[in-house]
Every structure is written in C-alpha cells, then in structure tokens.
C-alpha cells in the first residue's frame, strides 16, 4: 500500500451547514466525511485522532482470459458476470498453468479464489482424472468455498465433484467423497488425523493429485506453521508413494515475507505474485486514541465504550459498519451497547448482529447474506470475519483494540471498501503497550512493511512427533529425508524407544497407538486442564492449556470465565482437572511465578560498548510459588497465599541482552531504581518483540538473571520476581541478562530473528517508552506504576539510551 497524504481535517469546517434532511440524501462519500468531521470536532486538544490517512481510489487492471482457458469455463464465469480478469488473477493462472508453485499476496476481497479455481478447474475439464486438495485453516472458510465451487459446478453441468471433508462429514458420505471428489476441501487437522493415516482409502485422490491449495498461508506461523510444514512433508511423501509431485498454490494476506514463509512451509521454490489488479475505493484510515482521564496514572477512557461511540457515529449516518473486537466477551459487550442504541422496530429483525465462533453454521450464513443484501446494518465480530468469508464490502470498519499485527489490521481494514464511493477504517487503541505504540507512531504502521512470519519446522519435539506419524503412514526408507535432521539416527532412537522396528532397511511402525491422535497441530501441548463448575450440578465450563493452568487455576485463584468469577476449590494436578465454584468478590488473583534461566549453549554473541546481545539454547525453570489478591479498581494488595506446585522445566531457545557492570555503574540511579528499570525495560521489550515477530504474546517468556561467569558454569540465579529485586534489602545484579525466550519446548525460531533485529528492537522500545505520556510508568510502557519504584521509566530510558548509543 503506497504511502499517502495525511489529511488532518480542521475542526468544524463543513458540518455546520449540513442539516439532517440533506444528510439523508447525501452520498456515501459525504456521509463518511461528515463522520470524520464529527470526530475531529470532539478532538479539541488534538490528541484523539493521532492519524487520518487518505488513500485515493484505484482503478482495476483488466486483462483477458488466457487463451488456454477452456471455452466452457469462460462461459461459466461469464454467467457469473466475470468476463475479464484482474491482472493479478491472470498472472497467477498463467504461472500455475506453467507448472510453478506460487503464493498470491492480495488484500481482502480482491478475487483471490479465482487465482486457483481457474487453472485447477481448467485442468479438470481437460482431464477428468485430475484431483486437487484445498486446505483452509478453518471449517467455516471451507464451507464458504464450497458454495462458490458448487455454483461453478452447476454451471458446468456437474462435470466435477467438490466436497468438504472434515469432522462434520457423515461417515456414510465419506466413501463417495474419496471416489468422486475432484476437489476436496479440508483443514490441516483433518489431513493430519483423518486422511494421511488412511491414504490407502484415498488412492484415487493421491494417484491423480495435481494441485494443493493452501489458503490464508499467513495464518501458518509459529507453532501452527511448524506443524503444518511437517504435515506437508508427510503429504508430499504419500503423494510420491503414488507417483505424484503436486503443485502448490497458496494465498496470503500481506506480510513482510510471504515468499520466505511459503518456501519454508513447502520446502520448494515458490514464485511470489504481489501485484494487485483489483480496484479499490477511496479509503480513509483513522487512528483513534481514547481521551486521557488521569494523566499521572496514564488512564484513558475505556476503549470499548469509545469503540461503541465511534461505531454509533457511522450507524447514525446510515453507513454499514463492522466492529471487530479481540475477545468473545468484548464482542458481546459491544453488541449489547449497539443494539440498545439502535432499537429495531417491533416485529422486525435485529439490524445489529454478532458474529463469532460458536454460532451455528446456518445462523452465520444468514448473517453473511444479511450483510450482502444490506438488511443488516451493523455486525460485531471476533477475528472470525477477518479471514476470507464473503460478506461483500461495507462502508466502515471499527477495530476495538489493535488486532496484534500490522497484517491483521490491514486485513480487518480491508473489510471496508466498496467498489465505488468511500469507506473508512478506524483503529481505537486500548492502553496496551502495542496499541499505544501504534497510535502514537502512525508512520511506523503506515510506513513499514508488516510483520515477518516465522516457523521452526525442525523443532525436534514437533518433528519427531510427525516422523512417528510418517512411519505409521509408510515405512521409512534409509535414504529418506525429513527436514534438516539425521533421519536414520532419529529412527534408531525411536526404535530404541519401541516405536519403530527395522526390517531389512526400512523402519516400520510397531505400536498399537495411532500416533496422529496424540499430536495436536494447534495448541502447544495437548495436555489441557478442564475447568469443572461445581456450584450446582458439576459441569465443564472450559479448558486451559498446561502452562497457563499453573497461573490461572491454582487453588484459591479467582478464575474469570464468561464475565463470571469463579473460586478454584481444588486443582487435581494428576487428573488435569480444576474444580471451581461461582463467587462474587471484589478482587482478582495474580500468581507469583519464579522463573530461572540457565544458558546451555551460546549460538552467537555480538558485543556493543557496555553491553552485548546473544542467542542460544537455554534451560528455563519456572514454578508458581504463591499468589496475591488484588482489589479491583484500586489495585490494592489485599492478601496473599503460598502455593506448592510442581516445578516446570523446559529446554528452549532464547535471545538475551547482557548489561555490563560499567554501564550500570554509570547510571545516576539508586540500586532499586536500576533494578526496577530493568524490569520495566523488559516489559516494554517484550511488547515490541511480539510486534516485530508477528507472534502471540504468549509465545514469548521473559526473565532476568545474573550472567554466569561463563556459559558452562553452574547456574547462579536468584528468583526473577520484581518485589524481591526492588525491595530495600534486594541483592543487586552484578551483570544481568535480560531474557526473551521461546515459550515452547525446543524453541520455535524467534530467538535468532530477535538477535538479528536487536538494533531495531531497542530503538523501537525507546520510542515506545519515550513517547508515553505517563509520569512514572503505566501499563502502556514499563508496566503499571503501582508495581514499580519511582523513576522506573527514567531508569529504563537511561539504559536504552546507552544501548542505542
């Protein structure tokens, strides 16, 4: 997206003359402008609208259908009103036709499905044996595509069969799908547990498999992406067994490294097509920072209320609006506000609807239709509507909170934008550090490339699990490759452990278990805790993963679920169950966790003047030792408790900064201010790191520890908890390491990239803290002021100044 002119609309220029009557008649463009003016009018101090950017309309780049396109296929598309292609669609079709693996990078609603449907359907019409497998990250997306393909199939007199194959597919329909499906739409999880281990049932598909479509490629990053890469290794292996080397067609939202991600996932050369030929309407992008109500503590007005207010402004001007919230709870809250503000007529259906996972498929289809034919004026959604579900285009998008990534923000913003007229996207910032950084540094958002997506498919924990699945599917031959590891050595180890047996040269699966069942692609560990509500009849109300279980459902914790408070009565660690009772109290609990990091092996170190940064293998030991009770609103500490929970040990990779003695001694601060400053700095570093890595905040862990005299030395640590560090009699760190480690056993590939972007990381962290308006620290920069020593912010900045020097 090109950098464009910032338009700051001055106060009350042209709304005064507009009466109600004329606004009803005015076009969408003027109505959008009226709303923008209304925002500007509220912003008397010029601190609410931190950016107003205008993107001019763009013409479509039209190209004829390729000459090789089957006449019937052209007729079918013509019947849908498509007689010409956008330039990027034609380029994609041509590349696929030429046998290349491609990744098409396009914004929302630019006709990407045609990029793969056209060449694939053409191939099927040419040779009815051809088969294709489409992978979508969610079932809903597959359903959406099914409708589109069904329509094309009918226009082509059912000359090809298309089916979804997922957990909902009835067992009596499965046989027909395996035989008759030219195109099978599924998801990675089903491929992993349902198709690959039963490939002999799918011989028709595999013997003729020519194309594999991977839609929404950018969703496969981190742990999920690393799993998918291994699933694709298995898929290609099975295809090879049936004599096939399928071609890959991927689509991705805009990220910094689509080509790199695609070639890492597919382990093949992939051509990147990122010129977009679809038209776009005029669009305005607004950053909206809720007004400050307490400057000293850095407290702003609730971004949820402000989002509702912004959305209401659009709805009032009869602009069809979508509101994105980052959680289910917020979706429901915003929905309630907006429905109350827009009462529907008696006997008439609601005009404001919610949309999220958990709604029934029929209900979702109905909402999607309602949006397309404008019966529904507003919708409040979680990220469910962010992916390519077809709801047509709307007039306005309101994002309640930063979606977490630049790519995600553009994708949500892309929901607004009719072919003609004008549209508007508003990002309402919460007080989280990332949100505040973005709205205060709009040039960073609009100017820089979106995030990188990283995967680490050779993480041994992940790879070995998939190697087991692969052995189950097909004996492993001696010369086989599977990622960048020593396959024969791993097979020998698996044989030693009883999973495999070498017969002749091949390794065969020798276990009663079905290995795919024990590997979940989506969660870090399949070892979840169930939450059981025993207020009345016992019932399961939720699940938490292993690592967060220790901090959120330990005994006596207050667990929040669906807006209700629950007191944890008992944690059955062995059975992985937490028993809770509903309560109504005025406090919440915060677990006290000790984390220790030991450096095992340094992969690389770079020296700066009084500091250094490194990455390498570490051992992370953590234990939840107690908890605090904290009163709502006042954040007073109203009690504490000790806990005895098992210690958790994890071998992973980490990036760290070492602050050397001369640096620390040169700082004009007391010991406790320095210590506190380091923790504040780490808090901000973590926020910026998740931003740069395009990862979930939970994917990274942090800790501070004393730098050991040398890497192989015995651990020398103290508990890394702030209270102990900043207290009066705290022991001072001599030369501390500030760790940012991968919160997944074996590491997921964040450490090396962080090491590479070290300079950018410290620089952006400095900008974040410096531009924060609070006095002594707030949740948006170095952490809440109450937890910190005075002058924390200054100390953190002083350290950063030295690091940037």
């Amino acid at each position: 997206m090109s950098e464009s002119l910032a338009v700051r609309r001055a106060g009350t220029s042209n709304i005064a003359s507009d009466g109600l009557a004329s606004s009803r008649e005015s076009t969408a463009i003027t109505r959008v402008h009226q709303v923008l003016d209304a925002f500007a009018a509220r912003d008397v101090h010029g601190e609410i609208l931190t950016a107003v950017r205008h993107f001019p309309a763009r013409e479509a780049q039209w190209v004829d259908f390729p000459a090789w396109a089957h006449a019937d296929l052209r007729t079918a598309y013509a019947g849908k009103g498509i007689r010409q292609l956008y330039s990027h669609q034609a380029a994609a079709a041509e590349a696929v036709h030429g046998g290349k693996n491609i990744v098409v990078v396009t914004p929302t609603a630019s006709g990407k499905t045609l990029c793969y449907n056209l060449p694939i359907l053409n191939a099927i019409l040419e040779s009815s044996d051809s088969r294709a497998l489409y992978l979508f990250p969610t079932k809903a997306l597959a359903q959406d595509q099914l409708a589109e393909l069904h329509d094309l199939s009918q226009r082509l007199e059912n000359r090809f069969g298309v089916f979804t194959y997922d957990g909902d597919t009835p067992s009596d329909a499965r046989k027909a799908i395996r035989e008759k499906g030219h195109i099978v739409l599924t998801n990675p999880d089903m491929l992993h547990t349902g198709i690959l281990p039963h490939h002999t049932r799918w011989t028709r598909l595999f013997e003729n498999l020519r194309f594999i479509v991977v839609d929404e490629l950018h969703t496969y990053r981190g742990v999920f992406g690393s799993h998918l890469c291994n699933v694709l290794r298995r898929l290609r292996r099975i295809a090879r067994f049936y004599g096939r080397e399928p071609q890959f067609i991927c689509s991705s939202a805009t990220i910094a490294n689509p080509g790199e991600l695609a070639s890492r996932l597919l382990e093949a050369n992939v051509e990147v097509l990122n010129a977009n030929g679809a038209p776009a309407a005029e669009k305005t992008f607004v950053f909206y920072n809720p007004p400050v109500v307490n400057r000293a503590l850095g407290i702003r007005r609730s971004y949820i209320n402000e989002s509702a207010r912004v959305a209401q402004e659009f709805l009032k001007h009869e602009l069809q609006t979508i509101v994105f919230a980052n959680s289910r709870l917020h979706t429901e809250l915003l929905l309630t506000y907006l429905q109350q503000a827009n009462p529907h007529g008696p006997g008439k259906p609601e005009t404001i609807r919610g949309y999220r996972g958990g709604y029934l498929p029929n209900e979702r289809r109905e909402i999607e239709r309602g949006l397309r034919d404008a019966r529904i004026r507003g919708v409040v959604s979680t990220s469910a509507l962010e992916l390519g579900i077809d709801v047509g285009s709307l007039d306005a998008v309101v994002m309640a909170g930063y979606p977490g990534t630049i790519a995600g923000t553009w994708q949500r913003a892309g929901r607004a934008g009719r072919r003609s007229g004008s549209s508007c996207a508003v990002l309402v910032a919460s007080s989280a550090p990332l949100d505040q950084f973005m709205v205060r540094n709009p040039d960073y958002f609009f100017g820089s490339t979106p995030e990188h997506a990283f995967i680490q498919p050779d993480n041994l924990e992940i790879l070995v699990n998939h190697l087991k699945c692969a052995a189950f599917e097909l004996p492993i031959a001696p010369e086989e490759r599977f990622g960048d590891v020593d396959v024969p050595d791993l097979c020998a180890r698996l044989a030693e452990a009883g999973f495999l047996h070498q017969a002749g040269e091949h390794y065969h699966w020798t276990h009663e278990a079905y290995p795919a069942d024990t590997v979940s692609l989506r969660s870090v560990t399949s070892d979840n805790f169930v939450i059981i509500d025993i207020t009345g009849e016992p019932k399961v109300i939720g699940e938490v993963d292993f690592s967060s279980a220790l901090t959120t459902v330990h005994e006596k914790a207050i667990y929040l679920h669906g807006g209700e408070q629950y007191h944890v009565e008992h944690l059955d660690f062995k059975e992985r169950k937490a028993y809770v009772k509903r309560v109504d109290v005025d406090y919440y609990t915060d677990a006290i966790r000790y984390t220790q990091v030991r450096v095992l092996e340094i992969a690389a170190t770079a020296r700066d003047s009084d500091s250094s940064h490194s990455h390498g293998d570490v051992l992370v030991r953590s234990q939840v030792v107690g908890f605090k009770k904290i009163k709502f609103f006042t954040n007073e500490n109203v009690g504490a408790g000790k806990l005895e929970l098992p210690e958790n040990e994890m071998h992973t990779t980490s990036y760290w900064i070492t602050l050397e003695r001369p640096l620390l001694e040169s700082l004009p601060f007391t010991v406790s201010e320095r210590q506190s400053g380091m923790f504040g700095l780490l808090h901000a570093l973590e926020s910026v790191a998740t931003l740069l890595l395009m990862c979930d905040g939970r994917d990274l862990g942090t800790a501070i520890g004393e730098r050991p005299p040398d890497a192989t030395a015995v651990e020398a640590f103290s508990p890394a908890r702030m209270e102990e560090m900043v207290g009066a009699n705290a022991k001072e760190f001599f030369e501390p390491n500030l760790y940012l480690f991968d919160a997944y056993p074996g590491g997921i590939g964040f450490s090396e990239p962080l090491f590479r972007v070290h300079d950018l990381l410290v620089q952006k962290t400095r900008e974040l803290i410096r531009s924060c308006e609070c006095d002594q620290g707030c949740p948006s920069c170095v952490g809440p002021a109450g937890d910190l020593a005075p002058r924390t912010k200054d100390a953190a900045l002083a350290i950063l100044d030295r690091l940037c020097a």
Partner: protein
Amino acid sequence: MAAFTDRFSRISALKPTRPRPSGAELLRAPHAEDSLSRLLGAGIATNRYGQHVLVRNWFSSPEYSEVSDVSLDLLSHGRDEALSRRTRAALADPSKWLFLDTETTGLAGGTGTYAFLIGLAWWDAGALQVEQFFMRDFGEEHAILHEVASRLADRPVLVTFNGKSFDWPLLENRFTMTRSIAVPRLAAHLDLLHPARALWKLRLGSVRLVELERHVLDAAKLGWHREEDVLAALIPQHYFDYLRGGPAEPLAAVVRHNQMDLRGLAALVGKIDALLRSDASSEAESLDLFGLSRYLQRRGNSQRAHSTCTQAIGLGLPREYDRQARRELALLAKRRGEHEQAAKLWHELASDESTGIYACVQLAIYYERRAKRLESALDFARLALAKVRRHKMNSLDPAANTRSLSLEQSILNRVARLEHRIRLNRVSPALPMAAPEATLGAGGFVPVSLNSRE
C-alpha cells in the same frame, strides 16, 4: 556438546511408553529363527515374494454341514436387491467359501496397522482345512499377502466374524500398500457378526467369538478347550516383542488362538443355519427364538417372525423380554390387519410399567379407529397420560424426559380430540363433523388434526 546429547533425552516424543522386553533368558538363541516353526510343526514356505511361515492343519471338527437355502436367502438379504441376488448365487457353492481371521498389530486401523498372522480355512473332506500365514518380520508381508490372494482367487466367497468393518478393510489397505499385489475381488462377503448379534446378544450380552463358543457351540461337547488362551489385548505386544528377539512361545499361543477362532467361525455357520432353517427348533432357547423372530422381521419375513415370537413366549421368557416380545407380536398382528388379536395383546400389556404407556396409546387408537368406541378410547388415552406423567416424575434422565415431554404432548392432543369428538356426537350425532365452533366449550382444546395419521 553435552547440551546436544541431552537434547534428545528431553524430547518427550522419544520417551518409551512401556518397558523393553526384559531378561536375556527370554531371548531366542541365535539361529533359532525357526523356533516358532518347531513349536507348531510349521514349515517355511517360499513364493516369488520370498519366505514366510506356513502352518497347515486339518481338523475333524467342526464337521461340514450343508447350509439350507432358507438360511442362505436370509443371510444374503440386503438393502440392495441386485447385490443380494449376486451374493446369494455366490454363496450357493460351499466349495468357494473361505473362512478368514487375522491377528493384527493393533485395533486402530490405518496404514500403520499390520496383519502379521492371516488364518484361512475351508471345507475339505467333510471337515476343516486350516492354513495360517505368518510373517516373521515386515519383509515377509508381501509373501503372505500373495498366498492369501491366490487362495481367494480359488475361493472368492469370504466368511468372517466382524470382517466387514475390521479384517477385510485392513487387508485391503495392506494389499494397496504393496503397490504390486492387486486387492483380490470377492464374489461375496458373509460377516457372521451381524446375524450372531441378532440371535444371541439378548441371551449372552456379548457376542465375542469366545462367548459364542462356550454358550452356543457347546465347546465342551465338541471336545474343544482353549487352554492358556492369550489375552486378545496383549497380542500386538507379543508380536512386537517377538520382532525384537523376544520369545516365540506367546506367538505359538496366538497361532492356536487364531486356529480356534477359525474353527469356531466354521462351526457357527452350522449353528446359525440350524436356527434359521426351520421354526420348529425344539431345542432352541426361548431368548434365541425371540432374537430370531426379530431378525426375521427385519428381513421382511413377518409370517415366520410371528410364529417364532409366539413360540418364544410359549417357552417362557424373562419378564422384561416377555413384555417386549408381546409388544412385537401385537405390532406384527396389527401390521397383518388382525386388530382384535393385537388389541388382546395390548390389554395384557396395559398394566406393565415400561410398555404400558405404549400399549395404552395403541388401545386408544384401536378403540377410536377400529372398534369405534370413543369413550373407551378416551379412557385409555387418559390412562396413557397418567402413566407418562408418573414416568416423567420418576425419571432423572434429561434425554428421556424430553422424549416423554413430546409423547405427553401428543397424548394431550389425542385426549383433546377425543373429548371434542365425544361432545360433537352428543350434540348432533347425525352430523358429527358439521358442529359449530361454539360447542367447543370453555376449556376447549382446538383439535389439532382430525385426520392425523396413526
């Protein structure tokens, strides 16, 4: 580098899930590869795919018994008429039958589950010829599959116990995995699990082959006993241990277990035929007869189903099944149009706890439609209503309560309709349908449908 070697020890996916076979004394001596053959008197056979172990035995029991046409018709009956006819034709020649039972490396299915022992059997010289193909290692799989394919070419009618959902799909996978031996084509596949379940589930609860052997085949009388039979759940482990140099003895037991299963399977054919061929099986147990009647009914032979059911009731059934049987009988009578007969049976059941509600509803229908006695119909409808309400009150099962609720609603509708019709008859008996709406009365239910289908 210490860190690097440590890395593997931390990977949970590499951790064994069970201890290795322990004790050196268990290991086979070198060059004792054929210890299994010695234990079983088996030989090493060779075909173009290589070697495998072949265990061949002829057993004098069970003896061959011809299967009647009646039984063949019933056994080949399926949803698809054309398919049933083809199956029937193939089944007609017992010399084409091949009994099959496999021992596998797991029950999970999928391409990583192997059949390491495939047992086949056929009628020969008035009794049973058994051949078992065993792979000493994965390298011998093609060889044993080749043998199975060639046996099936001669005898394409497969007879199994649960083979339709387990053994045969698994073998199909194995054949496909070879990429060289085609999946053999079957002329017919007779899976005895389904008839066995229909006939004996009521009496035995479980229809595992071992249970059938003990309680149906009268194993003791045949002189069969499974001494030191292996636990089925341990079979994969015995094989894995053997692969890694563990003892052959447990596998010899697996081979005997497989033999017994094949003989049981062959004997079962005779037992099923004996029950199916005539309705005058005087020796049969009453519960088996009741099972048979239901099996016959499902296959569309309601005539025989009726007589068999009557016979079962005559022999005396446990109370719970007696009620069920009478209910089936009443329904059979109703279906044949013998409404009085059916009503007689419903009367017997009306007071029963579990089937009472249904019986009362049926009687209400009978009196309303057939006997045209609306007052009696209303009495039974009200009785049904009282019963269903009592039932609902005593039940804790939410699913059952939902069912009760919809049943209650339909009975309420019926009561309302009957009350309405009775009132109409009182007002103007000559023109029952033309009554003005005003006569509906204060608490009047609006009749839901006067012509609702019963």
